[in-house]
């Protein structure tokens, strides 16, 4: 359901054949991911993000930030639920495991959505007064995120 919503939202922004094609590929990858494992779902999420970017680029409409917040929360929850679903396969589930996970995801969705909206509000207010070269700033942030991710990936496990 989450995958369908993520794939369907870009079609509402720009109902084009190219967007639909990418959406079908993303949906297929997400569907396969539930059978083959979370890495395929990650592939699906990456394609869905590409589909969203393409839809935004084709539409050329004013920014839809509320939808973007929901899309971001949806992508994160898709990855987390797929991973949990894979772990819970062929395992005995103790009492309250699924309920507590659902509570956690709901809490995360609300907190992440609210925080992002607050950040967006703050950024809008700041952009009205300060003019920044956004593209280089974002590239710097992206590079920093990539470096942190690599550092996390190669760090030695703590014992």
């Amino acid at each position, binding site marked *: 359901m989450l995958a369908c919503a993520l794939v369907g939202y870009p079609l509402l922004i720009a109902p084009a054949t190219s967007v639909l094609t990418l959406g079908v590929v993303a949906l297929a990858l997400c569907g396969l991911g539930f059978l083959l494992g979370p890495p395929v779902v990650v592939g699906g999420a990456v394609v869905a993000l590409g589909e969203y970017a393409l839809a935004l680029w084709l539409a050329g409409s004013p920014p839809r930030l509320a939808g973007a917040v929901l899309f971001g929360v949806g*992508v994160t929850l898709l990855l987390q639920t797929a*991973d949990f679903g894979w772990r819970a396969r062929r395992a005995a589930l103790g009492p309250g495991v699924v309920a507590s996970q659902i509570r956690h995801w709901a809490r995360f969705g609300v907190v992440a959505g609210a925080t992002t909206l607050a950040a967006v509000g703050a950024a809008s207010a700041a952009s009205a007064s300060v003019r920044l070269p956004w593209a280089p700033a974002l590239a710097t942030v992206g590079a920093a995120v990539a470096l942190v991710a690599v550092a996390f990936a190669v760090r030695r496990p703590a014992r």
Partner: protein
Amino acid sequence: MTTRLTPLALSITTVGAWGLVLAVFSGRAELVVVVVPVLLALLVTARAPATPDWSIAHAISSARVFEGERVMVTVTVVAGEPVALLELFEPLPSGLRVVSGHNRGLFTLARGQRVEWKYEVECVRRGRVSLGTMHARCWDRAGLHAGETAMRAPWQLRVYPSVLPLRRLPGPRRTQSSVGNYVAPAVGEGIEPGDIRAFVPGDRIRHVNWRASLRFRRLFVTQYHLERNADVILMLDTLAEAGAAPDTTVDASIRAAAALATAYLARKDRVGLIEYCGPFRWVRPDSGRAHHERLLEALLRADVMFSYVTQEVALVPRRVLPPQALVIAISPLLDARFEKAVVDLAARGFDVAVLSPSPIPLVQRARRASTSVDLACRLWTLERNARAEALRRLGIAIVEWDPAEPLQAALVGLTGARRRRAAAR
């Protein structure tokens, strides 16, 4: 406990970085906004995971079972501190198979909570199973961080070979001195009538044969055959095996040995066991329930082992291999050393019978059917027939047993072969 980031953290990082790249190239602010919740999820990993405090205990429904029986394993998890998500996994050896439930579980535990987790295993192969290493993984709720450890909660399970039902057994040629179920040639106290002789003072009146006495007009008494037990030695070949577990020739031999031991002990015979695995390992002949347990324990240990030692059968002491004993050799006849031992025993005057679990159907079942396998099996059959015939020429009764067939059918064949051989003498 070893803690690490999970692959999910790397996946979320990848998706976030990809979103930023798309944002830069498309120049759309929405894509930056999309990445913010993803980055917030990653921030969770920066939190130090809480030190887990929990313990496990094992309980099994039965510590001693026979092959094919089921055992319920109950794992109790008690948490000292809250545990967000605890994954437990208990790897099982090949001799055990999960039939209901799972040997992996996921639990959420509150402080002081106690959770029971049950699964049922089927014991498919005999042996002593030592288990209890539980692999545990403590996840955070988001699944981005995991701590791994292994805990010991040892439990042991003894899986005895299944005992096949037997009604008729090969009888011994010679009996021993204790009371049993076989009719001995000697006369004395018994219920099987033997000879008739003239009455002498001291004979019991109830032994008087009135029909003969009236006919000859003097008193005659009926003599009865003694009923005695026998010594039966089961000689097990564990020098080599063929087939795939749990249906190897050694497994079939051990099942046959367990069935024979149980059936002979039920007849009050003394049963001994000699395992030939290069060196000899033995259990002295005895009778009774305690001895039955002793034999099953010895069969539990029996397995193929590599050894440079090859002992001669003459080294086996007389108390282990009594001269009057019936020796039932259980062997797939894969190793010439066992054949030599059997021939040595026959040459020394032992009453020897060979029950040979055929390795050919076991190997055929374990391999994919093909013309080459079929041809090889046919050649193998010819070779085995020639070897069996050579043993028959030496006066040794031998019968081949397909382990898929009932053991009783093979034993009937063995009894017939022994009868024919005795008649030929």
